[in-house]
């Protein structure tokens, strides 16, 4: 695909834990859709996820023990930063995100020039998620609806922030990440994307009421901590020139 070669280099990061059944299909889909390099971060999988991903032509990084979904994604961010990728897109390994949606997502990022674009599936938002959204919107003022969506595009500035130490104690790619980005003065943009229901396993966060309560409490504390600390703008405002498409 020569059209994509002229674009700044793009890395697709796919965090995966025991997704041997779907990961190869996702990798093929991403390569066909956007021609990006694909990195699979296996979060200490017990099955053949890593082998399947390598056979499908992805670079595979294997974590020696579990760091969680965000820990795996951040490993990808650090890889992207080390190798000089200009943009990172993340999607789940379970096949719920359609690779066909990726070109539109990337185009949206280029068009809006926002640092982060989040793919949202509004039909899929459950009642619990809607309530959670209202609550967190009130608390943080962040207007992102599907804040747990793993379908995202980050530009290099965002990657730099998220690869840093401040993001290392987060557990999910969710509000904590968004708050950190906002604190660093980066812009967020949400765009609708089609998604299918998960084929195997359920949402890690919204699986049971106990988990939801735990998550809400955890994130509330996080909101409080972020709110209490004064906003820092470490990155100078001059950077966007290098990022323009």
């Amino acid at each position, binding site marked *: 695909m020569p059209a994509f070669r002229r674009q700044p280099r793009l890395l697709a990061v796919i965090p995966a834990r025991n997704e041997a059944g779907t990961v190869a299909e996702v990798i093929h889909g991403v390569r066909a859709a956007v021609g990006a390099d694909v990195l699979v*971060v296996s979060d200490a999988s017990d099955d053949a996820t890593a082998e399947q991903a390598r056979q499908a032509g992805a*670079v*595979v*990084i*294997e*974590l*020696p*023990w579990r*760091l969680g979904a965000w*820990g795996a994604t*951040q*490993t990808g961010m*650090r*890889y992207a930063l*080390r190798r000089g990728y200009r943009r990172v897109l993340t999607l789940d390994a379970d096949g719920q995100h359609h690779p066909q949606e990726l070109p539109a997502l990337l185009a949206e990022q280029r068009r809006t020039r926002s640092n982060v674009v989040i793919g949202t599936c509004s039909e899929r938002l459950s009642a619990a998620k809607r309530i959670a959204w209202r609550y967190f919107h009130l608390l943080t003022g962040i207007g992102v609806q599907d804040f747990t969506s793993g379908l995202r595009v980050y530009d290099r500035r965002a990657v730099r922030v998220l690869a840093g*130490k401040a993001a*290392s*104690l987060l557990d999910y790619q969710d509000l904590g990440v968004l708050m950190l980005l906002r604190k660093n003065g980066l812009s967020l943009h949400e765009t609708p994307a089609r998604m299918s229901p998960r084929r195997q396993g359920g949402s890690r966060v919204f699986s049971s009421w106990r988990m939801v309560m735990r998550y809400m409490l955890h994130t509330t504390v996080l909101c409080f901590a972020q709110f209490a600390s004064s906003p820092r703008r470490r990155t100078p405002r001059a950077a966007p020139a290098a990022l323009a498409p």
Partner: protein
Amino acid sequence: MTAQITAGVIALVLAGAILYMVRRDHLHGSYALWWLAVAAATLALGVFPPVIDWLGRLTGISYAPVLPIIVGIGMILMRMLKMDIDRSRRERQLRRLTQRLALLEQDLRELRAATQAAPRDDAPELPRAAGRR
């Protein structure tokens, strides 16, 4: 009198245990200092209980024995807070180290593949990849 002996024995055992552990080098620098101070305070209060009454008069607390308990609990809470802060720091370091390890492993894998693809005489002998885990 018996009460004073009990207090003295408890203080001696606690201080002795701490001193023994510090002597055995089981505690890292600043922690050893902290625990030595605890041992000294325990010993002083346990062996000379009048000190507590004197402190009570000094601070205006009518029931003096409660003073060391309050101070003790306060210090335990402070200590626990410090421990959790340290643990969070460790957790962060451990996570980053884990990521770094995985990243370097990938670098090594690529280097190894490159040297095997183009073997040269002066290329360093890389150890064979052992079992993945």
